């Protein structure tokens, strides 16, 4: 059975957000991919072909768009998908060591899932948390920052017991009516800058 076969209202809703033209139909590609990925954890080849048929394009085109983003997966991921930022700042702060440690201790390579089905790993491009490098993202839940050896061990230990520690910084998930992004917990994004202290020796003036 195809994925969208009995989800006509959902498909119609997604298409209604875009212009009713061939180009507009193609624009619905990303939300459709997201829908499948959220439901099944990855987008298989048959799903790519299905989305291509819906959008009036080819599976090649769908795979091309999809492979541009590291957030879409073509293979199943573990229950905890560990994404290690490997771009310059994290690399300087030791993301390679973190990566090697994960790969060795979990005995899992990119594209694989560990034997117990819990873990999969992936190197990703900049996640925009350079100040707290090295960092790691677990699933879509949030950022684990300054992941040194002991913190990494603590995280893995609790994940092995299926107790996922709270992220240091949950990722923003929605945009409110006022245009502000809102965290999964409901708090405003960027709250970490509200508690800033003025450095000693600096005169007042503009904040």
């Amino acid at each position: 059975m195809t994925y969208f076969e009995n989800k006509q209202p959902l498909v119609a809703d997604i298409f209604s957000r875009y212009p009713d033209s061939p180009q507009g139909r193609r624009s619905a590609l990303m939300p459709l991919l997201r829908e499948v990925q959220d439901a099944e954890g990855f987008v298989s080849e048959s799903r790519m072909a299905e989305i291509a048929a819906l959008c009036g394009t080819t599976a090649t085109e769908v795979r091309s768009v999809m492979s541009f983003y590291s957030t879409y997966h073509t293979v199943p991921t573990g229950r905890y998908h560990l994404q290690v930022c490997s771009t310059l700042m994290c690399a300087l702060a030791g993301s390679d060591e973190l990566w090697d440690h994960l790969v060795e201790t979990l005995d899992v390579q990119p594209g694989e899932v560990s034997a117990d089905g819990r873990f999969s790993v992936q190197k990703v491009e900049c996640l925009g948390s350079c100040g707290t490098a090295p960092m790691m993202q677990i699933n879509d839940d949030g950022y684990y920052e300054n992941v040194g050896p002991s913190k990494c061990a603590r995280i893995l230990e609790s994940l092995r017991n299926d107790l996922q520690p709270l992220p240091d910084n949950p990722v923003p998930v929605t945009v409110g009516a006022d245009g502000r992004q809102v965290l999964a917990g409901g708090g405003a994004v960027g709250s970490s800058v509200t508690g800033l202290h003025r450095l000693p020796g600096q005169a007042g003036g503009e904040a």
Partner: protein
Amino acid sequence: MKVTVDGIEIDLPAGTSAIDAVFSAGGDVPYFCAHKYLSPVGACRMCLVESGSPRKNPDGSFVMEGEGDAASPKIFWFPKPMASCTMQATEGMHIRSAKTSEVVAKAQAGMMEFTLLNHPLDCPTCDKGGACELQDRAFEYGYGASRFGFDRRHAEKHYPLSDFVILDQERCIHCKRCVRYFEEVPGQEVLDFIERGGHTFIDTQEGGLPTGFSGNITDICPVGALLDNVARFRGRNWEYDHTPTTCTLCPVGCSITVDARNGRLERIVAGENRDVNEAWICDAGRFGHVFASEERLTTPLIRDEDGQLVPATWDAAIDAMKRGFSGMRTADVALYLGADSTLEEGAALEALAAATGARSVDHSPRYEVSVTAPQATLTDVATADAVVVIGADLGEEAPVLELRILEMLRGGLIPPEFAHGTAIADLRLVERPARRPERLAVIGQESRLWAHAGHRVSANGKGALARLTHPDTDELRAVLSLLEGAERPVIILGADVLNGASGSFSANLSDLASRTGAKVIAIPAAANSRGLGALNLVPRTGGLPLSRAQEAPAAFISRLDPGVRAAGFTVVHDTHLTTTARLADVVLPAITNYEKRGTVQNLEGRLLPLHPAAIQSGESADLIRTLTALAEALGVKAPARGLRGAQALLADRVALNLSDLPARGALHTFRQTFAGPAAPHTPTLWTERMHARRLTWVDRIEELVQNDWQLPVAPAAPPARAGGDD
């Protein structure tokens, strides 16, 4: 529009790209991603130039530089080099290429270094060696050294995209030409970039490239990443004898270059003819050439006492023909020729028929109707605002015509022509162009073009034209109003309507054409059916058409395989030992159209030249020379003994002067065409013998040895021969 390039002021039409401005000024800019018939995207960053423009004051006057009479508008230069293929030249713009700018030279050398960073140096083994744009440009514009000492990226080599096209992912420089080609030209989005950054590679998710027009990407790939699998590892570019000629597998008459090596046809690449095929050819034309060098007849064969065909000399063959024809009236010998023969050959045959008094003369395949309506050219098709295709499967009949129709759907933009040739980057061509399917109507069976059409009418071809003239359904009414509302409509007629078209057909067609102002292309049955139709090569009163060849008292059949022999003595002139040849009394070896000199007329009436490629074919002869042998056997004087004699016949009989035909061909309308009853013809582009057998190199060499194939070498002492008039 005045533009200054490297200090040379030139006058250009508005909208010209900066790269074309440099080429117009006689300069050079290296480029990989730009292509004459594809949208410019600025992907390779190789065509960098420095550019600057004058700027105006708020009052509209130019910002000036200098004092008094020496004052000139001040040029404000862009702070860094710009990609010239995506930049439009504007009034007063100044452009500096690497010739005058060190900044540009350094930027281009740096870009070259970057492109070569991960490119494997396969040049000693790569098939593109010697014709590789990257190789040439690295030599001309590179530093000659690299500062990057690390290992190169490794990706998959020899990755088959289809049976015909092999991808080498390591060699790909991501110019995106192949991706854009598939999207913009045949309208099939089957290739794209997968992954991103340093991991990007080209791939398809459709399970292989569609057969049809896939081979063109091997031509446009600027490096050796996409290679023609039929010709791969058969020769290096400098070893081939390149012969520009015309493809005669279908009536389009695409410009091709035949590459032969050691007397074998190894490769065919597309040539450029803006009026016919632009720069594209179909897969059959590109990959279906194997028959030219496989299992050829190289000597005449005559039947011995045991009834076996045995090799013989031409003299022995002429003697055998003399014996066979003895006691027979020359008029009893039926003369048949293939409809892809040249005009010269047709003229020679017609003149011989006149000399012998033969009534049974025919060329095949042909349709029995001759269309009298305004003739559309292929450029008319591409620039039309409505096209109606009736009863045609263009994929089998005239594939490149399909590309010209698709060109019409995306706006009919034909890149302008400059002194340096076709514009290299026509800025009007865009990626993912908007298409106008409502301008195309397809009436008939489902075909590949069907998917692109806005109006689709399922119809049996025979009555389709009459039904369109007097529409009985809403669909047909819509098609007719499309034709009537259009300014430059074109009607294309295929085999389904032309087969067995009755007397009212021509009247119906001219009526429809005059009512709607439409021009017409009736796709001929074979490459030169149109031209040969003008030469009276149809059965005279009481003569037998090819379909009744078995009733003829004797016959001469050239490059046709009806599968039957004449009642009496039969001579077959063919390139291969066909079914008909096996039945014949004498078989004379023929040359293929790749080895001929002559002229053919394509579906739009354009005369196109054939040039002979260096292919080993033993003692094979073209039809004109074979007819002199036949004339000798029949005891009549041969009307033409060579090409020039045949051209004189053409000038004499149909007022056609072929002595100075331009390379791009010339349109010609014959005053009269001859038609007669003909058997129905089903066009098929690919024939059995055109498919390459997948041989391993061991099998291939073994076969060459078995066929006693030898390197062609000049004879030690060429025998003195009397000169012919060829």
